[in-house]
């Protein structure tokens, strides 16, 4: 079992008068075996929350626990792994795919075992194990993001944190990565915090959704409930802003209606 819990987390940047509270007293639970989607605009603090969880940013207050125990923030074999937004930046250009993944595999493996593990992980993300010798520059954007996923899984994480992992990809590649995320989740029973600003993407992978706004979680609940009956005005605004929803009914360029207009405007035939 592995349930990730953020308990009254507050994060501040800067000191004194210039201090900014990026995350303000946030509590959130990611239950074992579920994908929790975290949505919000840039600057809402969602990526900061992710970075706190994996120890890249210190929390000013609060605790992060995994099954009730504090999450280790140092040393090898950490139970939380993270996949970053931009695979161009998150893969070392001077390391082969195999080296990058092998670096995170558990300590104490022999070279052969490590190689086998890298091959297994590459197959898991649908890449040819023979590409272990390739450099990131030789792969496409979607393939790079798969490598980043494989690397995160190499650490045998209890919880995986995906921070905007499809935002820097072309829409044509995004679908394949999302399919992979769902497949891996089902196959490995992963516990996952999936961060995105795209509600349609979150809806596709997450069973629960939390909405973050100005450093606070303003709404949280089962995905279908939050997306179908949003309580908070901000969630409604997010839903109304999704592109492509206005023209589907052949409304031409009549778009951008408030949520109430949106429901009123549905054809009632």
């Amino acid at each position, binding site marked *: 079992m592995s349930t990730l819990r953020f308990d009254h987390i507050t994060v501040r940047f800067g000191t004194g008068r210039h201090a900014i509270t990026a995350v303000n007293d946030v509590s959130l639970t990611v239950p074992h075996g579920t994908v929790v989607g975290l949505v919000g605009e840039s600057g809402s603090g969602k990526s900061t929350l992710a970075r706190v969880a994996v120890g890249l940013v210190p929390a000013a207050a609060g605790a992060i626990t995994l099954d009730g125990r504090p999450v280790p923030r140092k040393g090898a074999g950490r139970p939380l792994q993270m996949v970053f937004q931009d695979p161009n*930046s998150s893969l070392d250009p001077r390391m082969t795919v195999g080296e990058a993944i092998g670096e995170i595999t558990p300590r104490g493996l022999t070279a052969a075992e490590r190689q086998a593990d890298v091959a297994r992980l590459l197959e898991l993300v649908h890449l040819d194990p023979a590409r272990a010798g390739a450099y990131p520059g030789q792969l496409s954007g979607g393939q790079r993001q798969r490598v980043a996923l494989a690397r995160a899984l190499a650490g045998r994480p209890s919880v995986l944190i995906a921070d905007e992992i499809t935002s820097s990809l072309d829409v044509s590649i995004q679908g394949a990565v999302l399919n992979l995320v769902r497949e891996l989740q089902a196959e490995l029973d992963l516990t996952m915090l999936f961060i995105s600003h795209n509600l349609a993407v979150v809806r596709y992978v997450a069973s629960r959704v939390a909405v973050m706004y100005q450093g606070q979680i303003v709404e949280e609940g089962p995905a279908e409930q939050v997306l179908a009956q949003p309580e908070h005005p901000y969630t409604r605004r997010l839903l109304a*802003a999704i592109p492509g929803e206005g023209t589907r009914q052949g409304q031409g360029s009549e778009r951008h209606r408030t949520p109430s207009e949106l429901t009123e405007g549905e054809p009632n035939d």
Partner: protein
Amino acid sequence: MATKTANQARPSAQLRRAFATPMGLVALICLALVLFLAAFGPFIWGEASQTRDLTNLSGGPSAEHWAGTDAGGRDMLARVLVASRLSIMMALESTAISLVVGLILGSAPIILGRRVGRVVNWFIGIAVAFPGLLLALFFAVVFGSGAHQAAVAIGLAGGPSFARLCQTLIAGVLGRDYVAAAKVGGVGRFRLFGRHVLPNIGEPLVVNATIGAGNALLAFASLSFLGLGVQMPQFDWGRLLKECLEQQFRFHPLASLTPGYFVVVAGLAFSLTGESIARAMSFTSLGDLGLRGKARRRAAQLAAVADAARAPDTASATVPDAVLTVRDLTVTFPAGPGEVRPVRGVSFDIGPGEAVGLVGESGSGKSLTALAVAGLIESPGRVAATELGFLGEDLSRDGAGAHRRLLGTSLAMVFQDPMSSLNPTQKVGHQLAELAHEHGDLSWRQAQARAVDRLAAVRLPEAKRRAKQYPHEYSGGMRQRAMIGLGVMLTPKLIIADEPTTALDVTVQEQVLDLLQAIRREDGVALLFISHDVSVVGDICDRVMVMYAGRIVETLPVTRLHGGAAHPYTRALVAAVPTMATDLDQPLPTIPGRPVEPAEVPPGCAFAARCPLADARCREQEPALEPWLDGQVACWRPVGADTPATAATLGGPRLGAVPTARRAVKETVETTRVAARGAVDQAKAAARDAAGQVRDALRSAADQTRRAVLGEEEGPTEPGHEEAQP
């Protein structure tokens, strides 16, 4: 696909290319000579340099002694050649010391943690402030005179500047996500430094060290020349130069400079080598176009074939009052021996007030098309078109000045990153006013008033105050609005927006799209909207053009975008975007394979390799863009708009021709997906309607329940009420 090789994976090839230049060759020859002398000089000429010719003291150049002799009758040339080892070794030693000191100090933030690192950084800052010469003299006094001591002194004196360099380079690498990823993965700090940081700062360090070695060589020569460096009986070039000048100069001025010549050659060897490596590095970054010799030649051949084969594009007749008319537009870039053509014959029109979307994956040529229209393709890129008409003026003809003025006043461009398009050192209002003042013949006061007016028009709150702020004081969405405000300062007839909302949040994106729509409505401005996201384009445009591998493959009204597209690529692109109605039980449809590189455009339809419907003809002949329903399509097997299931029937018989079973299975899956998608689309529309109704019903039920709970007496709930509502 597997043969695509990034240049960073083959730095040796880059180095070879850099050293194949004249400068690189000279550098290599000099370096080889210098290193040879350092290694073997004392063995070969050691004896000769000690032999005294007592009949020829302080002699001039002769057949026996090319550079003359010193006061002791020893052959000068032999002494200079022998001295090269000491000179070079001292230079290398001191550079190595500088480098190690620099790396140790610069890496402190990683190894010792943030706090100690900060103290070390202060120390570096102070040390850099001292003049290097002062430090060198200070250390020379501390360590005493002698060759080795001088090397240590100069090495330590060079440490701070290397430390500063390392510090900056390391800070750049530490900001990258791969370092964060390694930290999260539990990689220790020493391994982090050795495995991630060092390799990524290695190139600039090597360049600087090589150039630094040249400087060190000169520094030693100077020190020894002044008598501070190497002491008797040792001698280096500086010391020899001093002796020569003292003993020979009066009689044989040219010969007495012999040690100086060697200093110059060795100094050049190091500096030029450094420069050449630096060039190689810049080649690496330039080489990102991913073009290699073979592919380049192939592209050139293809381009030539295409040129010969291309008939004048008759697919669309010229629209008389079009704002923009583009016929057979090509954009070509030289690439090594050949060229690549990322835009290969694009033709379209935009009518007054019309909003046209241009979509495609990255690398499809959509942005280049826009830049070419705006005249923003810089040399060495080349733009050609049979017609490039903007407001009745043919921009493809000569007359750059008049064209620039026309484009400047009537065409506005909005880019993805507004920060790079706004001048960070000028107030936003000032930048807007300047444009109207220059082009619009307004007085400065009028121009400023117009700037505030336009900022208000793009819904910037408190426009008057905001006009006096700098771009960095704006949020991303506000900057994008200011950018659009800049576009509408004059009265444009066409706005070209290149991924204007890709960097923005959905809510801000909505506001920007709204704004563009409003401007279009109010001022009758035409819009060319470029995006990789079909859903965004579908929201704002009347008509959509789909680009693939440098050509328009389909043009269609936005009403047909969902479900009615004819080109399999358009259909796949639309299907790939998850929406709020996407079926959660099915995997998302994907487009197999990857986009075509400009240098590797295949014969036939460029999409054939990824297309579930492709047959032999698709792979051999390139389809032309021909009228199709109320649009155009370039496809041999367009999916009929009236019979969406054609895909399945068309896909069926073709499978027999597919050679391998695996491929067949894969393609069947894809075909079924496309077919199912088409067939299901109509059902989905109905389902969406139904979903909307259910949502309505749910909401009204929720409302009523709430009212009931609150005890409000308004509208008593009746069971039949919800059912009756839809």
